[in-house]
């Protein structure tokens, strides 16, 4: 088949992602995006000019060879596309759905210059990942066993990625997960309608097939300490990827009233514990009629869209800056607007009001205006004196951010942390303890899935180098066998 000329490619418009109807989808938890079909994918892949600049590759935190990937799709060689994708990216069905492509690969795509529209790289990644899940058995080839054992703390994106990379290098990998299901924020934080659990399950199983062990219900910092992992359980290196799961509360009056949640609690009940299916699942959650969610990031979006789906008549988002400054993914904001989410900008809460029975019945806020940029580079919100107003509501969700959970660092005294409790690590993830590396939100603060994965890849490479070049001999510590017998 003759290759397209650049002119022909430029003529192809960006193919839209088929979505479920907004009024239908905002009442259940099934996935919003329906996915490309094969012909649509080939057409979209042909929009790539196969340009010399290839800035998209540098824009990808896990360095996927995007132009080659797109070429394979356009040539209908899905197996080659899948192989390339899985070689660079352990969790493509996940990143294809949750990456902020508009800030990464698609931001630098030359098709997006001027009035142009970038190639839908994210949607194509999702297509190939989903195709691979159904049609392609990778049979990952692993290097021969190295004799080294690596422990990974946390089964979120950083931990899962590091595990995959280390297993490919022949190392014996065990992931320790505190909760009862692997996935970390992927499974407790991101809702089904954005990232179905079956996608996560399938990608985690691919890792299990590589011989990676996942032990749930183990809290490193309580069940074992990091030093015990190395000194008593025979691990030669440890990668700490336990996330930044400590919810930030505003410390305003009324925060402990019934009906006030951290987004973490609200989403964990619904996503991990499947409270949307109560009472078939035992964990309950509140269904407010008029729900106010505080925040402007992806977690706030997830929370307010979940509240709508659970049955809120009005699901309202309160953000202290404007739409332009919202850190949430474009697609999420766009989907939320379609789903009847009410947005109120330039407001900040000062107190939560309760009724005589201790339930939330309102929230008092101040109007804000934007001043000079702050440390984040965004314009600082400034309260307007005397502008207090009260909104009636029966559920308040605080999605204003999370910080490092001190549970692990508190029992690892030699591990250097900064003033915020994040682990200090160099560009490879090396910490102040030899053989101990860290990556993901625990080193950078709450950020994205893909950045965590990038850390996982980098640290896995660094750990591999450390084991082969520095450590050289696997640990001969007589293990208590506690892990092996569990």
């Amino acid at each position, binding site marked *: 088949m003759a290759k397209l000329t650049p002119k022909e490619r430029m003529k192809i418009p960006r193919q839209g992602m088929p979505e479920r109807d907004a009024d239908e989808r905002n009442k259940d938890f099934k996935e919003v995006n329906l996915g490309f079909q094969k012909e649509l994918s080939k057409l979209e892949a042909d929009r790539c000019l196969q340009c010399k600049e290839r800035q998209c590759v540098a824009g990808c935190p896990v360095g996927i060879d995007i132009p080659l990937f797109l070429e394979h799709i356009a040539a209908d060689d899905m197996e080659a596309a899948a192989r390339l994708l899985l070689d660079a990216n352990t969790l493509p069905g996940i990143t294809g759905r949750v990456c902020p492509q508009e800030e990464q690969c698609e931001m630098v795509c030359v098709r997006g210059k001027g009035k142009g529209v970038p190639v839908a790289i994210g949607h194509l990644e999702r297509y190939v990942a989903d195709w691979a899940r159904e049609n392609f058995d990778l049979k990952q080839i692993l290097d021969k066993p190295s004799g080294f054992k690596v422990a990974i703390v946390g089964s979120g994106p950083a931990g899962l990625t590091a595990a995959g990379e280390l297993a490919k290098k022949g190392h014996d990998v065990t992931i320790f997960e505190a909760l009862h299901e692997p996935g970390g924020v992927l499974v407790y934080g991101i809702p089904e309608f954005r990232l179905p659990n079956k996608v996560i399950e399938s990608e985690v199983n691919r890792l299990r097939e590589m011989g990676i062990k996942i032990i749930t219900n183990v809290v490193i910092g309580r*069940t074992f300490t990091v030093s015990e992992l190395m000194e008593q359980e025979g691990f030669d290196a440890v990668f700490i990827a336990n996330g930044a799961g400590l919810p930030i509360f505003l410390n305003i009056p009324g*925060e*402990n009233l019934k009906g006030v949640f951290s987004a973490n609690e609200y989403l964990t009940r619904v996503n991990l514990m499947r409270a949307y299916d*109560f009472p078939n699942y035992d964990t309950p959650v509140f269904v407010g009629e008029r729900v106010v969610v505080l925040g402007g990031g992806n977690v706030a979006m997830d929370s307010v869209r979940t509240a709508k789906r659970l049955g809120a008549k009005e699901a309202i988002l309160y953000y202290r800056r404007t739409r332009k400054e919202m850190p949430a993914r474009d697609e999420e904001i766009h989907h939320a607007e379609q789903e009847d989410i009410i947005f109120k900008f330039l407001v900040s809460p000062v107190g939560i009001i309760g009724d005589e029975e*201790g339930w939330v019945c309102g929230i008092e806020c101040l109007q804000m205006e934007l001043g000079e940029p702050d440390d984040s580079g965004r314009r600082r919100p400034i309260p307007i004196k005397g502008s207090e107003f009260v909104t009636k509501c029966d559920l308040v969700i605080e999605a204003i951010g999370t910080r490092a959970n001190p549970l692990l660092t508190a029992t690892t005294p030699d591990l250097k942390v900064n003033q915020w409790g994040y682990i200090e690590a160099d560009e490879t993830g090396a910490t102040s303890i030899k053989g101990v590396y860290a990556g993901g939100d625990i080193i950078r603060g709450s950020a994205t899935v893909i950045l965590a994965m990038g850390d996982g890849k980098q640290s896995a490479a660094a750990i591999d180098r450390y084991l082969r070049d520095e450590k050289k001999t696997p640990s001969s510590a007589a293990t208590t066998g506690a892990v092996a017998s*569990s």
Partner: protein
Amino acid sequence: MFRILDARQLASDVKWFKIEAPLVARHRQPGQFAIIRLDETGERIPLTIADCDHEAGTIELIVKAIGKTTIAMCEKGKGDAITDVMGPLGMPTEMENFGHVVLVGGGVGTAVIYPLAAGLRKIGNHVTSITGGRTKELVVLEEELAKVSDRVFATTDDGSYGYKGTVADKLKELMAAKDRPIGAVYAAGPVPMMKALADLTRPAGIKTIVSLNPIMVDGTGMCGGCRVTIGGKSKFACCDGPEFDGHQVDFKELADRLTAYRQQEKASLDLQTQRRCRAEAKLQAT
């Protein structure tokens, strides 16, 4: 899966379990708890670890059958399994030699103070334990406490057994005894009980440590569902507690927050009862 190695009824609605959970048992110290999930559709609930055997890799849990999960758990016996057991969680009890300590347990709260007795005695405390219940059938662990305490008193509100009165009444009596002043009180039980004890000891300046029981989801500090107000500041019971200075606790707020899911708890229990009635009816019909 975590196997139940042994189980025994302690009272009509209170059951004792010995569970195989080697990783939980390894480091467990008195005062810590575990989070369990019975099966795939189950909720996560915290249960105090009443005892453990580090070498054998077992933990002991004492459960009162009140809601859907605890009722279902109390129907399990030796040989059955629990899907998830996670721990040990929470800050271990700070053991100090106060001279004379009084441990007060109300109902199944006695399972919470029982693990503290041996450790406190070991470091030199004279340990007086009080186990109270509304009526004789609801008093638990008297025998077990007698083995690890210097004195044990059982109390019943209705006088059907032991001392007639509440645990607070008994404590008041002990406080009045000049021959053995009390250095500290450790208490666990229903919120009104813990509040009453704290109110009693506050004017006397007797250090009072209470073990709080808010609703929990993850148990590792990532959701904030278990937040309590201590001395005006918000703390997470799962990580900063579960033990706190009783004189600083906002008991009213805790009691209130514990009622949050009453409706859902009832719906869950009703559904379980309905399903069982239907299943029984089906069996009878065959």
